[in-house]
């Protein structure tokens, strides 16, 4: 139909315009990673380098033990994501499906923790970790990040939208609460869970200050720490930084590309009448 074709075109135009804006920094990052140093800060900007300096990548790789960092990043990201998913699912379930004394208060208190700038928490946390003897261990990198109020809140909202009839059916079918959570709620909340996981993975992957603060040895550090190698007192080696950054975010992009369709593929919601 003409009209819907028209509106379709408008949608594409709008989306494309937005997409250009969204793409800019990314394109810039890639193009900078291939620039000669003098092109980096040129004004007006150079978008296509005169000469493509692929050696920036090899040079960037040399600056820090990126292979080791990569492995650490993977370990920390995977473990903390799994940990967060578990604690989140459990807590979100309690907040969405169980009526208990003080529920609203506990929830409000947890929300409250999000309102305090993390800057003031850094030092007390360091001291705690230090008392636990966790400084410079994987535990310090992972455990404090295995629970997140944000994720609990998000999932709780999603869980609240799942019809209670299903929990009725499951109970009748002899399903314990815990199994119900696992077999019914979690699969139905797949889009939200994937969202939580994606955001978590990205945050964890990009975390910079924390790994620096709680580790001392190279063996435990993660990729973003490697990126700091290009920053000096008087400036930044942008071309190398961007080359390294590109390599760092590439896995995230691929992951997102793969996972986003699960967010939107959706879960069939029929099976209920009324």
């Amino acid at each position, binding site marked *: 139909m003409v009209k819907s074709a028209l509106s379709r075109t408008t949608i594409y135009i709008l989306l494309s315009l937005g997409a250009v804006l969204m793409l800019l920094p990314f394109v810039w990052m890639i193009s900078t990673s291939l620039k000669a140093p003098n092109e*980096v*800060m040129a004004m007006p900007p150079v978008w296509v380098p005169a000469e493509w300096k692929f050696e920036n990548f090899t040079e960037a790789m040399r*600056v820090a033990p990126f292979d080791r960092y990569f492995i650490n990043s993977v370990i920390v990201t995977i473990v903390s994501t799994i940990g967060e998913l578990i604690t989140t699912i459990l807590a979100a379930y309690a907040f969405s499906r169980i009526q208990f004394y003080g529920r609203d208060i506990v929830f409000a208190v947890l929300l409250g923790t999000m309102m305090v700038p993390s800057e003031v928490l850094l030092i007390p946390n360091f001291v705690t970790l230090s008392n636990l003897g966790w400084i410079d261990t994987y535990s310090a990198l992972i455990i404090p990040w295995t629970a997140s109020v944000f994720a609990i809140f998000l999932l709780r909202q999603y869980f609240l939208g799942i019809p209670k009839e299903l929990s009725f059916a499951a109970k009748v079918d002899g399903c314990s609460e815990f199994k119900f959570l696992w077999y019914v709620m979690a699969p139905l909340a797949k889009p939200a869970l994937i969202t939580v996981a994606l955001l978590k993975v990205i945050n964890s992957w990009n975390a910079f*200050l924390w790994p*620096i*603060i709680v580790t001392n040895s190279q063996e435990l550090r993660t990729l973003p720490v490697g990126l*700091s190698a290009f920053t000096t*007192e008087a400036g930044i080696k942008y071309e190398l930084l961007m080359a390294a950054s590109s390599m760092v975010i590439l896995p995230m992009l691929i992951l997102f590309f793969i996972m986003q369709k699960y967010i939107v593929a959706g879960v069939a919601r029929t099976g209920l009448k009324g």
Partner: protein
Amino acid sequence: ACGGNEETNGAEANEEETEQESTENTDEGTETEEASSEPVEVDFWHAMSGPHEEAIKEFVEQFNSEHENITVTPVNQGSYDDLEQKIMAAAKAKSLPTLAQAVTNVVPEYIGNDFVSPLNDFIEDEEIGLSDEELADYVDVFKESSSWDGTYYSLPFSKSTRILFYNTGLLEEHNLEVPETWADIRNIAETVTGDGVVGMGFENSYEAEFQAILKQLGGTYIDEATSEAQFASEEGIKAMTMMKDMIDEGIARTAGEDDYMSNPFGRGDVAMYIGSSAGIPHVGSAAEGNIEWSATTFPTLDGEAATSFAGNDIVMFNQAEEAEQKAAWEFMKFLTSPEVTAEWSMKSGYLPVRYSAQETSEYQAFVEENPEYEAGPQQFDAGFFIARVQGGDAVRNIVLEETELILLGEKSVEEGLQSAQDRANEALQK
């Protein structure tokens, strides 16, 4: 906190086995440890990355191989801000390393909160200390900035100063001489301004320039003894007016949205600017293919030369065991030895911290090749350093804020400086 150094058994042992392995040793007293003494580990936290970190690693390797029982472990802790945050945290958790790099401005805070060791006992130590000649070999301005009332709390390490960068092409085009005084600067700026080019440039954090001019005019920024800000004086007003006038007239600008002046300078948008000597490599890459440039000393005013020195020192924390402190001291000496500081200077662009370092042939050759590096050491004698007081960063924030208001024309120079001074004093008197 570091009394009783002399009693440590490693102390006398030091001199006895020079024969062991170290052949390149030049400093007396930095010999290897005795085989029987306990192995000591020294953590050294720094904020050097990239090639700088490589260089530090090399130094450490060299040092470790020369000292069998000492293992220095350098740990990069991100940027200076990160490093400082981490030191704060570690201090609180009582898990400070033995050594760390520290921006000169924060050393007063460290002292105030009592977690750095005074170094006098080490320096004055007969065996492992520094001889008078050695002490005298440290560049004066650095030495002064490392001591408080005669007590040394740090040794200079990666130091920089403010120098003047200029576009040689442009100056030649207008047949202009390399500027030496503020009057020259004004002249040149007036001449070359126009056609998209601004004559003079200041970094956004030009309070360093303000201090230098203030000093050249004979004023005082902060009295270190009384912790009192005094920059709203006649001299201060004059210094500030001088810069503001240039900016108002359009013959000077700040880096502004370009963040660092090296960018517009490299593009050829400004003919000259004053910036940190540590920025030389950045100017190099920004200018590559665009302009010809060089650097010279900070301009003088009425024959008065004065320029501020800044950068990083090395401090030793008092939470460490005595043996560690002693080992750390060895490393501090090593890092500031003429050879090492010369090499460090050539690799990093920071200034050598020993006079004698400049005399080495390698360094001479280096400066020959890179004349812009000459400017820094040339002004050692005119050097001063920013008052080191607790609350110094607060003052810096206040001054930056108020000068911005002055530049924006929201406050007159007098008002701005006065209010800055009042606020600064309030912050300092706490």
